[in-house]
């Protein structure tokens, strides 16, 4: 069985994207590390800084014993995946990133998601409507605890990105030596496609038509096929 680590995006991982189903059908075992906060469990307190986050991620990844293997990271997960590849190159055999954070482009600042009223945030992540798994995330926890879990998931992502989502990755991209694929939605509100230029050092950016920020949900077939082809080629 082939194995790949998937690092989900800014809204967590409420269900497996149909894009990942395509990878599974192609024979890939998809490993998703258990990142605190994104699961909405009570008692979450963000790490003090980005190094603290990387430590938490690496501990979670090492617990899966999945590495070394290819890594697919989306949004926030793209940033974490890129840093994993830059700082632990022996752990990542191939890297695919979908609209990754980590480098802020002041010429293309995009939408400040956390200056959008809470109830409206989700709609800005997708170009084709909010997928069902995201519409009632944590709803099974009930009217009291469900909103708390949603809030904590937001806290996790926001604390990774505050205030502009730049974690100095531009100065570390040159350390990524594995094969790479960079994809971007042409309707991404958070990271406008113009911001993708900063990632050109990893190779040509593949722009996906009709996709918003979480492109593996907006155009799962296209994204799934492209990632599968990339993995197949490497």
């Amino acid at each position, binding site marked *: 069985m082939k194995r790949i680590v998937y690092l989900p995006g800014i809204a967590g991982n409420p269900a497996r994207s149909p894009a990942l189903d395509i990878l599974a059908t192609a024979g890939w075992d998809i490993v998703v590390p258990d990142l605190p906060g994104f699961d909405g469990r*009570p008692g979450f307190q*963000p790490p003090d800084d980005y190094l603290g986050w990387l430590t938490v991620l690496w501990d979670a990844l090492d617990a899966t014993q999945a590495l070394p293997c290819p890594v697919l990271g989306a949004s926030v997960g793209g940033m974490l995946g890129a840093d994993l590849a830059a700082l632990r190159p022996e752990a990542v055999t191939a890297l695919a990133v979908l609209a990754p954070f980590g480098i802020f482009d002041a010429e293309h600042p995009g939408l400040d998601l956390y*200056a959008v009223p*809470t109830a409206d945030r989700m709609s800005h992540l997708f170009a084709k409507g909010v997928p069902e798994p995201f519409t009632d995330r944590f709803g099974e926890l009930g009217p009291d605890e469900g909103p*708390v879990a949603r809030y904590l998931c937001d*806290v996790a992502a*926001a604390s990774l990105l*505050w205030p502009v989502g730049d974690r100095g990755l531009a100065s570390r991209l040159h350390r990524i030596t594995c094969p790479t694929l960079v994809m971007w939605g042409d309707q991404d509100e958070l990271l406008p496609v113009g911001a993708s230029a900063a990632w050109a050092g990893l190779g040509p950016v593949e722009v996906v038509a009709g996709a918003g920020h979480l492109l593996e949900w907006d155009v799962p077939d296209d994204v799934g096929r492209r990632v599968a082809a990339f993995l197949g080629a490497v």
Partner: protein
Amino acid sequence: MKLLWFHLMPYPELPPDFNRKHRSVWVDIDPGLFDPAVVAESYERYLDQLVYAEECGFDGICVNEHHSNGYGLVPSPNLIASVLATRTSRAAITVLGNSVALYNPVVRVAEEMAMVDLLSHGRLISGFPVGTSMDTAYAYSVNPGILRERYSEGIDLILRAWAAKEPFAFNGRFTQMRYVNVLPRPLQQPHPPVWIPGGGSVETWDYCSTRDFVYAALSYYGHRMAKETVGGYWRKVEENGKDPNPYRLAFLQFIGVADTDAEARRLYREPAEYFFNRSLHVYPGYADPPGYVTEASVRARYKSQVRAVARAKQAKHDLTWDEMVENGYVVIGGPDTVRETLEDVARTFNCGHLLTMLQFGNMSDELTRHNTKLFADKVAPGLRNLFPEAVDHWWPANAVPA
């Protein structure tokens, strides 16, 4: 009971259609709306009003800290406090900034507040608010998920620095310093009284009661809306085994006094509408950055119908004058009406420090002074004798009550 005069120092000339044509009074407000000449004149007038409050017999005068906004023109309360320290001689200088999590290294706050304490000869009340979400997470871009930890660590460092007998090294989560040696030290030792402004955070109630700090309940939505907050605080005081000394609490209330109830309704309508519909016109997106509210407070929020209603109101920004009055956002009336209401509030809340908001919105200088004088002469005497048996352990050493 102690009576303090609180000034937000608002920008007084936001246009009448501000809340229709502009998204927010905070964070991304159009800087073109501000006329520097108006700001300069406002500072002068507001400082005079604070000095006048001492002359009228108020026990303390208060300033606070806000950034990138038209709601309050005081990004640096220590600057205003330093002026007040030298222009007044008796009142407590109550600085309900500084938002310590915004400053790095935070010893700068310790230094400046020590200077204010010295300039005022020991009349400083050191207020340490977390700061609004607009000020902290947006105007100053501090990560809201770790804001409160930074804040708490900052206060610990300041208090230690003020009292330390010798230089020390500090290795905190957010501040590391080989040498901490704040000079000059404040006149009040081991430190000036600490007041913590709060808006209802569960953790803040616990923090204040365990550390023996004053909890200053700052709600702009009046005494009725504050009942839940104040009740929660006193329950926490009891849980932590502390005495119910009324001076553990300060409470802020908008007040308009006139010769008659009818006259008060006429006089204070415009400045109140200005404040609630223009000065508080905050874009809802700036109200709830993830992490700013603690998990416990979020949980309490979703279980509290009262706060849900309050939030809906706050988002509305088109409050009517009748709503403001009927809901107690503003306590207005003739002297007897105001005194009776405030006495009831003070007794119900067990509140020893009343923060009076007698200037708000675009209230003119003339009306501000009228309001202040009427309150001092005809309302204050009926309130001062409340809680005669209680001892105020949270009052500056050299501030002399009226």
